[in-house]
Every structure is written in structure tokens, then in C-alpha cells.
């Protein structure tokens, strides 16, 4: 593999592991703090952040490592949520069955649609992933046995061989953080491996990779499936937290929001997606309290972050971080 040795102009992601670990510790600390203060609401917020971060990290892997901008990541997320709902209706609530089911169903969807979508590039890829997500949205809205457009409450939170281990919100929060940590570290590892190197190389220069007899299509397909499966797990957790599943989970707005998280935090490192998820959840929360017109504020922050991500702001933030 020596011809690839002069790695593309992307930092090796191993450095990100420290950042990821720090972020997990931060989430855990926030959770502990919330419980210490008896704020079950704060704990719920941490849980939601961790769940969205899980979905965002998987999308970040696609965008940052493989260069595949999916505008339909809410679809596998929603499929994971529906897996919980539908399995629950058939009395299957064991978490050891439900989570793999959610992962499998979402990964399968991602595999099948990815096989077609990967034939396209750039804006076409963005739009074809959106098209597939819209299809799933309309399918879900027509499932009248499972609430149709209105959605439906899940039978109960997932169990462990009948024991209702997720009933306390604390357990769900810990599970979400643990799965986020596992996914983030797993993906970091993958990104740092030869496989990750090939993904990034394919992003930079596809022809070169093909000339070397490597098959970027297959690598990307694997990346799409894995990312989809992880989003499915996030969806399963979301269904457990909210205890309600509806097609609005698959709305393209959520796909857009996940992209916002990835880009705001920076797509080069997986930890960026976690930061992005934190920022978006907190902005929603903080602005929503002040004004009915909080979306105006959110828009200004997003636009500002894009327009002024120039040197001045970086310098300013740099000063701030160095005291």
C-alpha cells in the first residue's frame, strides 16, 4: 500500500480519540450534575443530546471520511424508531433483540438504497438520498396499523429478558452515552485503519484509487450501511426516550438538522458532530425560552458560523482558549 503513504491532506483521525473521550466525560458529568441537582429535565436533555449525537456521528463518518453528503439520514433513524414500535406491537421488547433489529433494518435500508445512490455524485447524491428518505416517510405515513400520519405510542420501553431496565431515565441516559461512546470510538478506529485511509483517499482522488485496483464503490457501500445501522440504533433510543413514534421523525428537516450538527462542529473529526449536536440542542433550548421567534436566532447563528468562519473568529476563539 506504499503508493498511498503520502496521505491526503486530511489529518489522521487518531488524534480525535482524546477529544471524543473528553466529550463523553463531559456528557457523563453533565448527567451526574443534573442528577445531583435533581433536575430530571436536565438529564432528559443530556439523553436527547447523546442520541442525536449518535446519529450525527454516523453521518459525520459518511461526510467527513467518505465524502458522501446524505440528505436523508433521518430515514434510517426513523426506521430504527419504527423497529421498536413494530416489534413492541408483536410483544418483542427485549433490548438484545430490539437494538440489533433496529441496526439491521436501518443498515439493510441503507445498503439497498446506497447501492443505487452511489452511482451518483455531488448534488445528485444529495438529492437521491433525500428522495429515498421521502419515500420511507410516505410509507410510514401510510402504515395505518401503526398510527399512519399521526404516529403512535410504543407499547413500553425496551426490557432485558422481561426486566424493565430502561424504565428509569437514568438507565436510558447511561445506555445512550455508552452507545455513543462505543460508536464514536469504533468509528474513530475504523477511520484510522487502512479502510478509513482508503475511504478518504477515494474522496480525494477516485481515479487514482481505481487505478490501484481498489474498489471505492464497495468501501462506500459498507460505510453507508454501517452509518445507517448506527442511525437506526439512535432512532431506537429516541423511540425509547419519547415513547412515541411518528413519521415526523423522518421529516427532511431532521436530515437537515443532522447536517447542521456535523458541519457546525466540523466534519473532519467525529467529535465535531458531538459538539454540533450539543450546540444545536442547547440553542433550541436556550432560544426557545426567550422568544417565539427562536428560529430567527438559530438562522442567524448558523449563517454567522458559515460566513464568519474566517481567520478573525478563529483567532478570537484561540485567544479565549489560551486564556
Amino acid at each position, binding site marked *: 500500500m506504499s503508493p498511498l503513504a503520502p496521505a491526503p491532506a486530511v489529518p489522521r483521525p487518531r488524534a480525535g480519540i482524546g477529544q471524543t473521550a473528553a466529550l463523553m466525560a463531559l456528557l457523563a458529568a453533565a448527567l451526574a450534575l443534573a442528577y445531583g441537582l435533581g433536575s430530571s429535565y436536565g438529564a432528559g436533555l443530556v439523553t436527547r443530546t447523546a442520541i442525536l449525537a449518535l446519529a450525527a456521528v454516523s453521518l459525520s463518518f459518511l461526510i467527513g471520511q467518505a465524502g458522501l453528503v446524505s440528505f436523508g439520514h433521518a430515514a434510517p433513524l426513523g426506521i430504527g424508531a419504527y423497529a421498536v414500535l413494530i416489534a413492541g406491537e408483536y410483544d418483542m421488547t427485549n433490548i438484545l433483540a430490539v437494538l440489533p433489529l433496529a441496526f439491521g433494518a436501518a443498515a439493510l435500508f441503507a445498503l439497498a438504497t446506497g447501492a443505487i445512490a452511489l*452511482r451518483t455524485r455531488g448534488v445528485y447524491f444529495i438529492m437521491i438520498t433525500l428522495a429515498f428518505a421521502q419515500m420511507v416517510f410516505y410509507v410510514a405515513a*401510510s402504515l395505518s396499523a401503526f398510527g399512519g400520519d399521526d404516529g403512535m405510542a410504543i407499547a413500553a420501553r425496551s426490557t432485558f429478558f422481561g426486566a424493565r431496565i430502561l424504565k428509569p431515565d437514568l438507565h436510558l441516559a447511561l445506555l445512550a452515552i455508552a452507545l455513543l461512546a462505543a460508536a464514536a470510538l469504533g468509528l474513530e478506529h475504523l477511520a484510522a485503519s487502512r479502510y478509513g485511509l482508503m475511504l478518504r483517499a477515494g474522496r480525494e482522488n477516485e481515479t487514482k484509487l481505481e487505478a490501484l485496483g481498489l474498489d471505492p464503490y464497495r468501501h462506500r457501500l459498507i460505510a453507508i450501511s454501517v452509518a445507517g445501522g448506527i442511525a437506526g440504533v439512535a432512532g431506537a433510543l429516541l423511540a425509547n426516550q419519547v415513547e412515541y413514534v411518528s413519521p415526523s421523525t423522518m421529516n427532511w428537516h431532521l436530515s437537515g438538522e443532522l447536517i447542521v450538527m456535523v458541519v457546525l462542529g466540523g466534519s473532519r473529526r467525529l467529535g465535531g458532530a458531538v459538539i454540533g449536536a450539543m450546540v444545536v440542542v442547547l440553542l433550541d433550548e436556550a432560544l426557545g425560552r426567550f422568544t417565539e421567534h427562536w428560529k430567527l436566532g438559530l438562522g442567524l447563528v*448558523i449563517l454567522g*458560523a*458559515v*460566513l464568519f468562519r474566517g481567520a478573525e473568529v478563529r483567532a478570537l476563539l484561540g485567544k479565549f482558549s489560551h486564556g
Partner: protein
Amino acid sequence: MTTALIVSQVLNGLQLGVILFLVAAGLTLVFGVMDFINLAHGVQYMLGAYLVAVSVAFTGHFGLGLVLGLLAALALGFVMEILVFRHLTRRDHLEQVLGTFGVILIVTEAVRMIFGSAPIAFPVPATLAGSVTLFPGLNYPVWRLVILGVGIAVAGLLWFLVNRTRIGMLVRAGSTHRETVSALGVDIDRLFLFVFAFGAMLAGLAGAMAGPLVSVEPTMGDRILIIAFVVIVVGGAGSIKGAFVAALLIGMVDTLGRAFVPDLLKSLVGRSAAATAGPALSSMLIYLLMAAILSVRPSGLFGGRTA
């Protein structure tokens, strides 16, 4: 099924198609010249409807109000390009998506603060508000015929501009050989400014055309935006011809799907199953079409370049 029903459904499909074309034309031009993904295009459609509605109410004259409103949409296009969009042209697609998503949130919310969430009135002169008898058994709304006429006229004008004028030549060249055009001493940023503002006005015109049919409210651009993107991707991003063909195709598929798929299903799978599956299938149809076309032609029908 009567002839009148089929004819009126075909007219409906064409009319939806030309509205989609008006929206998609600006979008695809902007994409073609600068490789720019503008999610805020739907907002410009919404602004057009509001600006025309307000100027018609203000002047008390429909034609005058329409012209004033469109000029305002054009002016706003220039302002927005200078304030925001020109700073995004050299960024990657991801940042453009994000930045213009921010613009959607800001403009939508600002309009809501000014006009409220409730849909506003869109006055139409009485002569255009009714329907005419095209042939015995077929009454058709006059306004929808106006839309058809305006859409076809604009398509002709665009064809002329793009194929027969210097600026059109630059736009065509810019979409395929941007570096060469710049190297020849053409100020591509200035070109983008004009193309962008013109596109904003076209979107505004589409909003004004749709205004008498749909509720004019702050989020009206959301849904049309997604469909407009479907149109330009199916047609091949950057291609005006592609946008025109794809817009008519999608307008027809969507309308005829809604008109005939539920009945078709009823005869195939029975009444109750059709009642639930029908609407889902007919709303899915355009996305199915898009996925099918892209899987065969990954750059759309008329897209030469892998964008």
C-alpha cells in the same frame, strides 16, 4: 372516464409543470453558473408572492402591482446576493447548504414577524378569477390558463436569452467551462450577481402565479423547494432545457398520479387497501421517478457534467 376529465387533468399537469419550471429555472441557472446550491430559493418564491400581494393591495391595480412586486423581488435578489450569497460562492457545497438553510430560517421568521402566520389575501382581478368553458363539459379556471401562458412565454424568453444573446452564451459557457470563461477576462462574479437576481425574480414570478391558487403564508416555499430540486436533478443540474422537460414530466406524473392511481389501485387491490396505499403511492411517485432516472442516468436527463 370522460374526455373532459382527461383533458382537464392533462392541463392541470402542464400547469403545475410550468410553475415548477419557473422555480427551477432560477435554481438551475445559479447552479450552472457558480456550482451553487441555493436552498433559499423557496424563500424567494414565497417573498415574490408576498411582495406582489402587498403591491397589488397598495396600488389597487393588479398589473401595476405585479410589475412593482417583481421589481422588488429583483431588487431583493441583488441585495441578498451582495449581503450573503456572494460570500458563499467559493465555499464547498456543504457550507452552501448550511448557509442558505440559515437564510431560510431567518427570512421565514422575519416574514412571520411582519405579516403573522396566518395566510394573507392575494387579490386577483375578477375577470381572471372565474372559469371558462373550453368545450362542452369542460370548464377550466382562467387563472390556470394564464399560468400556462406565462410559463410558456417565459420558457421561450429564456430559450432566446440563453441561446441567442451574449450573456446567455456566457451562462452556457460558464456552466461547463468556468475556468476558461474567467481566463477570457469575463467577470464571473458579476455574471453571477445578475443571474442570481434574475433567478430570484423568476422564483418571485412563480410565487405570484401560484398566489391566487394556494395559501400565501411564510412556509409556502418549503415544499416547492424540494420539488424544484427534484426537477433540476432529474433534468440535469445547470441545464435550462433539462429543467423544462423535467418540470413538465414531474408536473404530469404528480397530477396524473393523484388523479388516476387511487382508482387504478382500487381495481387492483380492492377499495380499503387502495384508500390507504393510494395517497401514499401518489405522493411517492415523483421520488420513485427520480430514483429510477438517476439510477440509469446518474447526471440526470440532460446533465453532461458530473456535478
